[in-house]
């Protein structure tokens, strides 16, 4: 089962990956965490749903996302 990892401190919280890019809509900006650079990073809500399609990775400018299978 695929796994999506968000590199918390690389993420700039732009929200692109959370903006219906993920077919499963399992990515959101975590309002309450703030990273070293002062951004609210994205997080995966329900890892089990991940298809490993990599769309999130593709649209991430940093890239701050890794997908494992």
């Amino acid at each position, binding site marked *: 089962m695929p796994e999506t990892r968000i590199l918390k401190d690389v993420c700039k919280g732009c929200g692109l990956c959370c903006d219906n890019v993920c077919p499963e809509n399992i990515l959101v900006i975590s309002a309450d965490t703030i990273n070293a*650079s002062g*951004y609210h990073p994205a997080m995966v809500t329900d890892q089990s749903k991940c298809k490993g399609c990599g769309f999130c990775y593709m649209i991430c400018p940093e890239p701050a996302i890794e997908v494992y299978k």
Partner: protein
Amino acid sequence: MTSEIIISGFGGQGVVSSGIILAHAGMFKGKQVTFFPSYGAEMRGGTANCSVVIATEKVASPIVASPDIVIIMNEPSLARFEPALRKNGYLFFNRTLIKSNPKRNDIQVLPIEANRLAEELGHGRVANMIMLGALAKKTDLVSLESLIKAQRYRFAKADEEQLSINDQALAKGYTLF
């Protein structure tokens, strides 16, 4: 008499506005003032800081090397500017976002729950006003009135609601000590 101030924080924390408002307030009190901002290489984010000088006679250098007062809005800024502060100088810092504590004991340390208090007023972004209010109270550099006048001058185009929230935040900070 010359007072040199440095205000430092993240890009989005209104560091530059605070500096300009402080300088304005000084000018409204008939003082000589200068303001000089300095940004990092990043287009957004990163840290920004600015130097404000408020004096009774003509200001020579607008760049502040060893400030009398520093307003610290985030963690990295504390590490950078605490050492530069003059002996017996004032260090106002944003306790909400800054976990570590100042190390020096030859300075006046003033922790302020700026972001928390701002949130209580319903607007995280006015944390900078809270700091300015506190500064007005603790030092006789500028008056609360001149700060209010200054912020209303600076944000002339903003709506009254915003302006009054700023006023409240300044007042809030002013009542802290």
